[in-house]
């Protein structure tokens, strides 16, 4: 209450967005941070307000998103008494924050807030939670603010070990089949330019993780695809054929590696990573480089020879052809009038020239967007990767629009995930923000249904969904909306949505039982990727 009372005096300088649910607030702050390179800020009240942040905190921690969350707390003399709306948010959030702190005296506020922003945004970014007791909020104090740039026990800028870089350069120079994997770390360190210089000098094919998409333009001739479970055929099989594997700003998530015991065993591994605990965590690196990606790339580029790997690149191209041909064949066999998710995304990508900010939820539509949207711009792919939080997209898109107001922001969401944070349509209504929403409605929790089909003998246990009239729902919030079911109407509908001033919801009815392929089944090796 005292914080909000103070905010009332700062409506001109602080843009406060009133959301409908704290989970919506934190996902919106994540979307804002991911597109803007700034730290997202969230306020929540004590008790349930604070606990509603939990999913977003876990999501932001695993996806390295800088946030400062400020929660209210009961007065300090009531701590531990089960007072009204008291919850131990410091204890609850400890494992899912980069740092948290409880303020019980007003004089601590400036230095702790300064520290919070420094910690959230430096090194490997992450969420910080500050819990402020009510008495501290009411207390008066002499204001003094000093920016925090240093903490004795915290070392966000590791010193680059030049010998390791030399060692890596030597491996790269000798390599016949080098392969580069990039992750979100490239964008977090703003190393897109340095990456491009490195790739163009070394001639090494580049593949990206889900969160890394956009760090290197998809239309670049050395871009060879998307990694992992629903990634592309070529980068997955070539992982087990390369001789030097260079990983930058990524953490070898199990969705990327498949069976770790059969992952890139033949290759020498160079791992550049700012978080020391990620080195050797999943994949033992022959040359671990604990460093900021930008700094390491600059030095590495200077140390390598100019090179080309035409034959090796040809192998990627021919593997890609195998993938495209097989998927095309499958589509012909299944030929139906029903719209497919990939057609919608491909057309959307074409119309927006791969330059919109695309915010996705979790599931089949997410994988389709990762596969078929031509991400050519950095920080344009906003999705929940590590935690896989359904309900992420709608609020994150709202935040993304606030973070990048000049860009077109398109939320692509499934019918399931949309209903998990649908209340945030109210935020769109009130803040009059321009977010385009595409619901790919297959009337199923599609990814789970796909697994049930492939691995559980089509026993579709509780995955079929009956949804409300999304168009009517949007209209109830004064958001323009339309629904289409036919291919013939797709282009016009997308154009109408994109040309509409203000928010717009387009529901696209897609095939009920479409599957996402390729696929590396759980427990399989990346070289066992299935094309159908």
């Amino acid at each position: 209450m005292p914080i909000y009372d103070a905010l009332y005096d700062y409506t001109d300088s602080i843009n406060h967005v009133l959301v409908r649910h704290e989970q919506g607030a934190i996902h919106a702050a994540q979307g804002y941070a991911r597109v803007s390179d700034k730290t997202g800020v969230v306020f929540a009240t004590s008790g349930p307000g604070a606990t509603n942040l939990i999913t977003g905190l876990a999501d932001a921690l695993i996806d390295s998103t800088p946030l400062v969350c400020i929660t209210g707390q009961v007065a300090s003399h009531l701590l531990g008494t089960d007072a009204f709306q008291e919850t131990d948010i410091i204890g609850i959030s400890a494992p899912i924050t980069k740092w948290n702190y409880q303020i019980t005296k007003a004089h601590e506020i400036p230095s702790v807030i300064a520290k919070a922003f420094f910690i959230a945004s430096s090194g490997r970014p992450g969420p910080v939670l500050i819990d402020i007791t009510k008495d501290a909020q009411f207390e008066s104090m002499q204001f003094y603010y000093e920016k925090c740039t240093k903490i004795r026990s915290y070392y966000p800028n590791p010193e680059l070990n030049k010998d390791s870089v030399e060692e890596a350069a030597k491996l790269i120079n000798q390599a016949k089949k080098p392969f580069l994997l990039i992750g979100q770390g490239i964008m977090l360190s703003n190393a897109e330019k340095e990456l491009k210089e490195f790739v163009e000098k070394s001639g090494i094919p580049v593949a990206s993780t889900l969160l890394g998409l956009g760090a290197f333009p998809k239309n670049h001739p050395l871009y060879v695809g998307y990694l992992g479970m629903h990634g592309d055929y070529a980068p997955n099989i070539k992982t087990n054929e390369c001789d030097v594997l260079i990983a930058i700003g990524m953490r070898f998530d199990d969705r990327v590696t498949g069976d770790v015991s059969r992952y890139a065993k033949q290759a020498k591994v160079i791992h550049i990573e700012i978080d020391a605990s990620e080195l050797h965590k999943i994949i033992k690196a022959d040359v671990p480089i604990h460093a900021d990606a930008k700094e390491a790339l600059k030095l590495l580029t200077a140390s390598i020879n100019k090179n080309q790997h035409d034959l090796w690149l040809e192998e990627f191209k021919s593997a890609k052809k195998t993938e495209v041909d097989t998927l095309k064949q499958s589509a012909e066999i299944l030929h139906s009038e029903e719209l497919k998710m990939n057609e919608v995304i491909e057309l959307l990508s074409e119309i927006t020239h791969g330059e919109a900010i695309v915010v996705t939820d979790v599931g089949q539509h997410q994988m389709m967007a990762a596969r078929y949207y031509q991400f050519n711009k950095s920080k344009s792919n906003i999705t929940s990767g590590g935690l896989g939080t359904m309900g992420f997209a709608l609020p994150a898109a709202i935040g993304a629009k606030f973070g990048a107001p000049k860009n077109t922001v398109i939320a692509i969401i499934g019918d399931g995930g949309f209903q998990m944070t649908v209340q945030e349509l109210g935020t769109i209504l009130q803040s009059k923000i321009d977010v385009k929403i595409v619901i790919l409605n297959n009337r199923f929790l599609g990814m789970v249904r796909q697994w049930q089909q492939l691995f559980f003998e089509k026993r579709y246990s509780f995955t079929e969904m009956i949804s409300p009239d999304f168009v009517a729902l949007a209209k109830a919030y004064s958001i323009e909306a339309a629904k289409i079911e036919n291919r013939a109407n797709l282009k016009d509908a997308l154009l109408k949505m994109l040309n509409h001033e203000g928010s717009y919801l387009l529901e696209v009815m897609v095939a009920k039982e479409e599957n996402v392929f390729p696929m590396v089944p759980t427990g399989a090796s990346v070289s066992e990727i299935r094309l159908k």
Partner: protein
Amino acid sequence: MEKIYTVSVFTENSIGMLNRITIIFTRRHLNIDSITASESEVKDVFRYTIVLRTSKEQVDKVIGQIEKLVDVLKAFVHEESEIVHQEIALYKIKTDNLTNGSVEKVIRENYARILTVDPMFMVIEKTGHVEETQLLFEKLKPFGILEFARSGRVAVTKPMKELSTYLKEIEKSN
């Protein structure tokens, strides 16, 4: 292969550090055998000594995640041969036992000492490795042990590098 490892963690003196450290073990389903905490030789730097049985690979990953905590200055892992360690045990038995000469013999033979004698009970103290304090426990058992408490391990390392040297290195690299 599983072995006993001693983890030493040096932290700032902030609320909740014990929780932050232990949840890293919990998350990996690792059980802590013993844990002690005290201020170290450097003012306001706290030292946690944690003993557990696990594999080298696991304990190295745990160390990495502990060091990632903002308020942790440094964490080390040591095998048994790399440290000098000690535990303390207290045994409460009935004072009546003193009239029986054999208790005195047990105390002498085990290099234990009597801390206090009350008309009703007496408290014996023994420091040593867990095997030694356990041996005394077995020997005192026939006399009837009213209460027994054993501390966690405290340990110092054999290598000569001092914590203050690390702290200086850290400050320099920052």
